[in-house]
C-alpha cells in the first residue's frame, strides 16, 4: 500500500509546481465569478486522482502495476486512499487559499456574494469534503470496471443524469431546493454548503443533531464500503 501511494506521489511530482499558477488563476477568477470558487477548488483537488489514473492510462502502465508484487485488492485500496488524500489535501489548500483571498480582498468579495464565502465556514469545508468524497467513491468503480477514458466518460454522463434526476425530484418537495429558491436561485445552487446545510437541517429537525450526524457518517461509510467492494470485484475480473 505504502509503495503504491509513494508511486502516485512520484508520478505527479513533476507536475506539482502547477499548484501555484493554478491557484493564482483561481484567485483571479474569484473576483470575476466568486460563485464558482468551490467548484474550481474541488476540480483542482480531484485533478490529483485524474492525473494519476490518466498518467497510468497514457503510458499503459496498468499492466506494469498489476505485475508488481501487490494484490488487486491492495491496488484498489491504494487508489481510494490516494484519491481521498488528494481531496483532503485539496481541502487544506482550499482553506489556506480562501483565507488568503479573504485577507486580501474579503470586503469586495463579500459585497458580491450572498453572504460570507463558503471557505471561511465549517459548512464550506464539510461540503468540500463531502462532495469530493462522493465524487471519488462514485468515479472509482467506473474506473476499475471500464478503465480510465471510457470509465471517466461513463461516470460523467451517469453523474449528469443522476444530478438532473435529483434536481427534478428536489423541485417536488425537497427542503434544500426550496431553500435554494428562497435564497438566490441559480447562484445559490452552485453552493453545495447551502444545500447540504438544508438537507442536514431538515434531517436534524426530525431526528435531532446527534442522530442526524451519525446517520450521515454511517451513510457515507456504507456508500464508501459499497464502492470499494464494487471496485474490488470489477478489478479482480478485469483482464490487463
Amino acid at each position, binding site marked *: 500500500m505504502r509503495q503504491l501511494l509513494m508511486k502516485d506521489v*512520484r508520478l505527479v511530482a513533476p507536475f506539482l509546481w502547477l499548484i501555484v499558477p493554478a491557484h493564482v488563476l483561481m484567485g483571479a477568477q474569484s473576483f470575476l465569478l466568486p460563485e464558482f470558487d468551490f467548484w474550481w477548488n474541488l476540480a483542482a483537488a480531484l485533478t490529483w486522482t485524474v492525473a494519476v489514473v490518466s498518467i497510468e492510462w497514457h503510458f499503459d*502502465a496498468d499492466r*506494469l502495476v498489476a*505485475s508488481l508484487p*501487490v494484490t488487486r485488492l491492495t491496488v484498489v485500496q491504494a487508489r481510494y486512499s490516494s484519491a481521498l488524500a488528494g481531496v483532503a489535501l485539496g481541502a487544506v489548500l482550499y482553506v489556506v487559499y480562501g483565507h488568503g483571498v479573504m485577507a486580501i480582498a474579503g470586503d469586495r468579495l463579500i459585497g458580491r456574494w450572498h453572504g460570507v464565502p463558503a471557505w471561511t465556514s465549517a459548512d464550506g469545508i464539510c461540503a468540500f469534503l463531502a462532495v469530493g468524497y462522493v465524487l471519488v467513491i462514485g468515479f472509482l468503480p467506473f474506473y476499475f470496471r471500464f478503465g480510465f477514458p471510457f470509465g471517466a466518460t461513463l461516470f460523467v454522463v451517469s453523474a449528469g443524469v443522476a444530478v438532473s434526476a435529483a434536481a427534478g425530484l428536489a423541485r417536488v418537495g425537497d427542503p434544500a431546493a426550496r431553500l435554494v429558491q428562497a435564497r438566490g436561485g441559480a447562484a445559490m445552487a452552485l453552493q453545495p454548503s447551502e444545500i447540504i446545510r438544508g438537507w442536514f437541517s431538515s434531517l436534524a429537525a426530525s431526528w435531532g443533531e446527534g442522530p442526524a450526524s451519525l446517520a450521515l457518517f454511517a451513510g457515507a461509510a456504507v456508500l464508501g464500503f459499497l464502492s470499494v467492494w464494487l471496485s474490488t470485484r470489477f478489478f479482480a475480473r478485469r*483482464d490487463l
Partner: protein
Amino acid sequence: MENHLEFAGVSKIYDRFALRDVSFSVPPGYIVGLVGPNGAGKTTMIRLALGLAATDAGTVRVFGHEPHTAGAEVRARIGFVHETAAFYDHLSVERVAAIVAPFYPTWDGALFARLLDEFGVPRRTHAGSLSRGTRMKFALALALAHRADLLLLDEPTTGLDPVFRDSLLDRLSEAIGDGRTSVLFSTQMMADLERIADFIVLIRDGRLLFRGPKDDILDHWAVVRAGPELAGELAAASPRGMATTRQGVEALLADIVDARRRFDGRAVVDEATLEDVFLLCREPRAAGAGREPAGGGQRSDGTRER
C-alpha cells in the same frame, strides 16, 4: 522439487482468439522456451502466468499458488518483461526504478546499477526517450535486479542487437545455474532457443503442439524431403507436420532412425532443427520421453502449403 510454474488444461477464450487446453510446466533450474508465430497465444500465456488475466478453464500455478489471487510474497519471486515494455515515460530511468524497487524486498540496488552500466542504459534519460532496444534492456535490468526465482520474459530479445542478445542469453544461462531460478521466455528466434532452452513449448493458434526437452527434437526428430510420389507414404508415417513445396513434400517425423530406415535412398532425411519444427509442426500429439509433466492437446489437419 515443486515446479515453479504449471499450466494444467488451461483455456482462455477471447472474442477473436482462444487458448485451448494448454498444459506444461517450468521446473526449477531450467529454461523453457515458448515458441510460436505471431498471435499464437504466447503473450496470453505469459499474462496468465503473471495473473494479469484469469483462466476460463484449467489451472495455472506459480510456486503452487494461483497467480491471479496470489499474495505479494509469491509475486515478489517473479521477474517479468512484457512484450511492449510500458513505463512512466515522463520520468527518468532512475525515477522509474525508484518506483519499482520498493515493491521487492530482495531488490539489489548495487546489482541494478551494475546491470544498467553493463546494458548501457542511461539513468537520467526519460524512459520515453529510450530506443526500443534500450527500453527492453531497462525492463530486463528491472526483472533481474531483485534476484527473482522465476523469470517470465515475453519476447525479451526482440529489438536487441546481436551482441547484447548474446550476452543476455549468457546471463539467463548463468541465472539458472543456482538450481533455484527458472525462466520462461517467449521468442520467435530459434537461434535463442537452440542456445539456451532446456525445454520447448510450441503453440500455434492457441493450441499446444509440442512440449518437451529440446534435445529430444535435435537428437531424434527428422525432416524428410521427397518428391510428390511419396506424399501418401509420408502421410501414413504419422508425421508431426507436412508441407507441400515446389519440389515435392516435406514431412516432420519424430523418429529419425525409423525415418532413415523407411525413406533413405528415396528421400533426403535430415536431422530436424528447431526452425523445421517451428515451420512444419502441426500435429499436437503427446511429446516424446522427457522430464515434462503430462498435458493435453488437440489434433488438426497436418498438411499445409509452404
